[in-house]
């Protein structure tokens, strides 16, 4: 992959992948830094990226893994996360409704959240999610169905005066 091609990929997909990782982990700063680091690693491993059928998926998976790994290290060592690229980045404020949605997403089981994000935000077909996550398609369909139901209930519960009854585990 040449520099120009990489730059185009970065320009075209950085915001999109960051949105997806943000939806998955619920922390925009962290998502931004992890996606930056994932792009840096992608450039460092560009031969590997050339072989990847879906470079975006490669970067998204790397960013997500970095985020999980940082979270784990931070939790274990109770130390600040390392800043991978440059200094702390200033990001635009996120719409309030997005914050509510991300908060609701965070309440879902990780597997359901990941399926929803990949399908409805990353716009991946079910078979591709199954390949990326490594589970059968039927499992992804079930997670999507349960996730949608649970998310709808959670978003309804956010409404003042709603009858909050907790999640229904089906």
């Amino acid at each position: 992959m040449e520099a120009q091609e990489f730059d185009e990929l970065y320009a075209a997909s950085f915001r999109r992948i960051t949105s997806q990782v943000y939806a998955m982990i619920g922390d925009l700063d962290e998502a931004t830094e992890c996606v930056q680091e994932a792009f840096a690693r992608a450039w460092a491993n560009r031969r590997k990226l050339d072989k990847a059928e879906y470079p975006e998926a490669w970067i998204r998976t790397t960013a997500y893994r970095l985020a999980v790994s940082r979270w784990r290290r931070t939790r274990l060592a109770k130390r600040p996360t390392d800043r991978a690229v440059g200094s702390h980045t200033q990001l635009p404020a996120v719409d309030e409704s997005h914050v509510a949605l991300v908060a609701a997403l965070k309440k879902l089981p990780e597997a359901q959240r990941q399926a929803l994000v990949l399908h409805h935000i990353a716009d991946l077909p079910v078979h591709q999610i199954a390949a990326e996550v490594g589970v059968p398609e039927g499992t992804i369909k079930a997670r999507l169905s349960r996730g949608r139901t649970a998310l709808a209930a959670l978003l309804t519960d956010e409404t003042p005066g709603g009858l909050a009854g907790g999640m229904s585990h089906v």
Partner: protein
Amino acid sequence: MSDPIEKLTRLGDAMEGAPMPLPASEIRARGDRIRRRRHIVVAGASAAVVAAVAVPVVALTIGGGSDDKPELAPSPTISDPVATAPLTTENLLTGEDAVYPTGGMVDWVESDTYPGDGQAAFSPCAQQSLDGLGAEAVLRRDFEFVVTETNEVDGTNYLNEVIAEFPSAADAEAAYAEIKEWHVECLPPGADRYDAGDFAAVPVGVEGTAEVQLSTYRPVDESLDPTGDLGYFLETGLVLSGDRVAVLSQSIVGQDYNFEADRRPIVVMLPDAARQLVLGNGDGQPSEPGGTRLIPDDFPLAAGWPDSSQADGEGLEGPNRTLPSLEFSACDATFAEPDYLDRLLATWSGAEDYRVRQLTVYADAAAATTATDELVDFFRSCGTGPVRDDGYRTDYEVVPVDAGEQAWAVLQRDSFEGAETPFGSTTVVVRVGAAVMILDHGGHAGYPSGDGQAAIASIIDEAAEPITAMTALRQAADGPDLTNPAEVTTIPDGFPLGLAISEPPEEDGGTNVAGPGAEVAGVRAQTACGTPLAMPNAGSPDPEHELGYSVSDIEGYDGRTIRAYPTVEAALDEMASLRAAVQGCNRDDDGDGRSDRRWRTFSSDTGYDSVTFGYTYDGTDDVGAPAGQLYTVVRVGNAILAIEWAGEYSAELMADSASTQVQIARGIGAEMCVFTVDGC
């Protein structure tokens, strides 16, 4: 109810139009830094380092005020360190590259790295160690299966990598073929069925061969799989490149293994493993900094040297792993350095004052001793070097030094036309365990006042702190010395040898309970195919170091013996003998000429080094019920516990009973950690 899908879709556009935090060029620059860290460009990097460091070390000058200053040689010079570096931990798969591609729900996390194959077999199909196949150097790294959300370790699944370097490419190729054959014809301990998958080639982007195999076997231990629905998925990756071999073994317990063929974990990891394996192996790439080290980065290698502000030159450089290694030459020959595992260097240079410290860790103390002896012998055998073009010649004198566990000084003194000169250098070699530190002083610091002993004393005194710190490296480099006398060689009071899963048996008219006691026999002698089985007691009591227990009733005999051996190595030898006897025996008779005994092994998932096996009579003489004996033998540290159950076994009943016996062994084994150096 709001439509969550619409909101989700909008979230995907949330950042559209937002400014990019960093330009692409900065991201690429960061990527380049990562890449450089991994693959230092050899020619450029080594040349630059030589230029920077060769000046203070090589261009030592002599001549007492004369402008015509010939070089002081031979002396330690700078070599390109990356021609063919020895196998190191940097050649192992990193934690970052060890992945379980399920979207981050679980991950392989590095847990341990050590020289050798390890005490536990790296694969259930392994028939011997890679040392046994002729490898000159073997390293292993274990990984834990961690659920990322909860950070819990799932101990039922494992991943490890073993890498080995052989004397030649032909030897490596033969070993590769042998290891492959093990995985084709395999019956793991406790398995009654093994389905070998085909080996398939995997492109890895380095010169050599890489293949992967997915095999399954069962049954899974009943405690994990009470309904019998699960199996072991054993994915094995092999890499052969030059004289090196890597074996990646991953075992997953499950009902299915839902990966596309090109997304299976080992297939994904194999290119990274191959890339790591070839680092430094004549591929023009140096060892990669940043991997796991045996020498801590904060090792006080430069302690005792003057502050850089006192130097009329470069001052301190390092400690680091990028400075070029010392190269020694004498009598027109260059010292051929043995393989090592890790190395740290530091230099301090001022005007005509050149000091280098090089700390090297070898595979074990024996290898370090050999390296020290060979270096000293190299100089000793030279004695006096040839007259150089400038009329100078160098005498080499090797003298013993009182430091570390083994230390020598090599005094290199220049003479001119038979007359002594004030020029020379001093090299002190200190070994502690598997670590060797070379302290090399040249220029004014090499032969101060023309007094060799004073030079040695000064060098040793200055390096007191790093020499002391070398003792801390022993454990890291060697691992526990298995031949050391064990700390605990008696069985602790109150040891729960009579542990029972349910109600403990009580002595009554029909039940005899003996012990626990030092004089109780416990496990009785047994042979398999005529070979006595190596187990504690077993007819050779050692009351001073063992404890026995037995329960006998009309249903059978439960005998147990635990013995503490003098060393871990002795206990390992005992287990090896036992396994060798059991492994080669499928059928025999017990000498009565009436019945054949059928020997089988069972799953022995005690969490420790253990084996569970037994026999049942293949046919009876039509008198009485089928019978047999079931054994579980567990080693923890320098102690071995053997459990024998003799009763009216059918083959089916024995298979069922094995998991119960393993459970008991696991429970008692947990109390045996006192026999280990570092605990369990």
